[in-house]
């Protein structure tokens, strides 16, 4: 019975797709499952948060937003969040581009090692990985001890790498590095090695080759990587919560407001701020890509 029902449904769907696949209806049909999931799990909750953020005792108003804007503390948290995200993005680019380049150009063995080394940490749960950093960066941890040996700080005044923005940045840089490496690797694969050789032959040194050939040609991949790292970074919760201590970012602050002070209105307003920043960055990225003439746009387009 149910077998026959399933078959008839699947038949109808596939015939609908083959009939309409080329048209607008067919496209929407193919998108429908994903859209339904996003609608139910992302857009509706977001709308709910939006409603919470503007519903006050005095009716609909922007009072919570006003409260945030007027409060220097929230401003400092917002600024810190964006600053951390920017620094993480820049560091991940500085680390990720050479890694991606070495993986693509450095031969099969090196490439494989880099890909595995970049991917492997993703198989370890985020919380566990972050506690790993907690141990490494804490007082008497490996990193602090090495730094002391190298002459940074002393045994009694160890460098403070935990419970501050430094800790958050170190953690996020590591967690988000793959999101920078893989889009750049993908695009570097499309750039023939001969472009670099031609540029060197025409008198460009390695930096010149990077600046004038590799950078412009890999811009779509770099932008995609930066977008992924930045958006993930401003929204990150686990890493700042564990490594930041009392140093708050928007995500940890929002959680705190919801769970401890139970102020849903204020928390929702802060959450909406985060959404607005992310949407602005994504829209900016897509504009830039359209202007550059590239038809990229896919990556991160549906946040």
């Amino acid at each position, binding site marked *: 019975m149910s077998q026959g029902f399933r078959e008839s449904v699947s038949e109808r769907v596939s015939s609908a797709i083959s009939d309409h696949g080329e048209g607008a209806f067919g496209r929407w049909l193919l998108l429908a499952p994903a859209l339904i999931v996003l609608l139910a799990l992302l857009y509706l909750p977001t709308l709910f948060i939006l409603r919470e953020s503007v519903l006050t005792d005095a009716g609909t108003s922007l009072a919570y937003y006003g409260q945030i804007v007027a409060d220097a503390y929230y401003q400092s948290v917002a600024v810190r969040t964006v600053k951390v995200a920017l620094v993480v993005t820049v560091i991940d680019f500085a680390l990720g581009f050479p890694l991606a380049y070495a993986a693509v150009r450095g031969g099969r063995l090196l490439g494989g090692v880099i890909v595995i080394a970049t991917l492997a940490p993703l198989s370890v749960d985020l919380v566990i990985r972050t506690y790993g950093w907690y141990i490494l960066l804490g007082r008497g941890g490996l990193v602090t001890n090495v730094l002391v040996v190298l002459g940074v700080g002393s045994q009694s005044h160890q460098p403070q790498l935990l419970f501050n923005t430094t800790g958050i940045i170190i953690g996020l840089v590591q967690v988000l590095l793959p999101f920078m490496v893989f889009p750049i690797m993908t695009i570097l694969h499309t750039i*023939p090695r*001969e*472009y670099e*050789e*031609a*540029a*060197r*032959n*025409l*008198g*460009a*040194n390695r930096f*010149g080759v990077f600046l*004038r*050939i590799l950078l*412009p*040609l890999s811009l779509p991949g770099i932008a995609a990587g930066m977008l992924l790292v930045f958006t993930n970074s401003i929204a990150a919760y686990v890493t700042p919560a564990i490594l930041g201590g009392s140093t708050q970012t928007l995500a940890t602050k929002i959680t705190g407001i919801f769970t401890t002070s139970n102020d849903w209105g204020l928390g929702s307003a802060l959450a909406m701020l985060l959404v607005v920043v992310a949407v602005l960055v994504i829209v900016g990225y897509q504009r830039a890509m359209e202007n550059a003439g590239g038809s990229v746009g896919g990556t991160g387009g549906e946040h």
Partner: protein
Amino acid sequence: MSTEKRGHVEYDGVAKHYGDVTAVEGASFEVESGEFVALLGPSGAGKTTLLRILAGFEETSEGSLMLDGHDIEGVPTHKRNTGMVFQSYALFPHMTVAENIEFGLKRNGFPGDELEERVETVLEMVDLDGYADRKPTNLSGGQQQRVATARAVAIEPKVLLMDEPLGALDKRLRDRLQVQLTDLQSDLDITTIYVTHNQTEALTMADRIVVMSEGNIEQIGTPTEIYDEPVTRFVAEFIGDANFFEGELAADGGTFHTEGGVDVDVEYDRTPAGRPALFVRPERMDLADAGAGATGPKRNAVTGTVSNVLFVGSTTRYYVDTPDGDVMVDRQNERATPEFAEGDEVAVTWSVANSRVVTDDPEDAP
């Protein structure tokens, strides 16, 4: 810019190994200033490796490489002042034609206010004036090739390096560009090393040809030397069509006894290191009636039966079945009807001067 002679290249025992694989084995030759040298050979012969070593893309494993009297081993790629033209052209897709050319000019000390004029000049040289603002993707293959050439010569390199530059083009375009390139090369008087697997290209364009096979240099010589006086069987076979007779060379070097039992007069004044074979080009042979016998200058002869007649146009090719196997004979078509037909008993004749002994060892060069 300067009038002094430049662009003298000297490979001295240059070898290149990749792990256990040997790409080039002890290559030694010189390229004179302003000379056009073709590196000719089948793929895997090591020609491109020699070019890439000079450009600085690869390091030598052994030997030394001199450019204008200086060992360039330690000189980084971007300071070698060589102009490379890639088979794929490697034009920068995000830059216009002008920007591609300026890229090299800016990095080779051309003053900013002369860039535009220089770009125009080199584009005129390759008949592409007016194309400065196009993107490479909007150009045809032949136009891209010419832009790549213009970009390379624009910086006035000491040596122009061309790696199968016409390899991706169809035959008609290739023929036309061969003429253009040789004209440009002699106008600019620029030392040129040209890698190709196309023997016609090498014969028509180059002053001298370096024939390579499996990492070794087989022979170095002018196109006519390479064609008429090949040292090795490989060279004879690779360049043009060839008839080979197996057999023994007499100790005095005056007679070659073929396996088919024919004694052929030859003139060979050395003791060969490799295994000798007799080699004659098809167009250097003639046909006569079998009974006529061979006398006079064309006194070498083998007899056989015409097995196939191919009308080629300006020539006719005869395949003659002889005791020494099939022999190809090319005859000019001076008359409308062929004098010989399939099944005719004929004598294949040729002169002593066209009887060459080749071996399988490049060391047997005179």
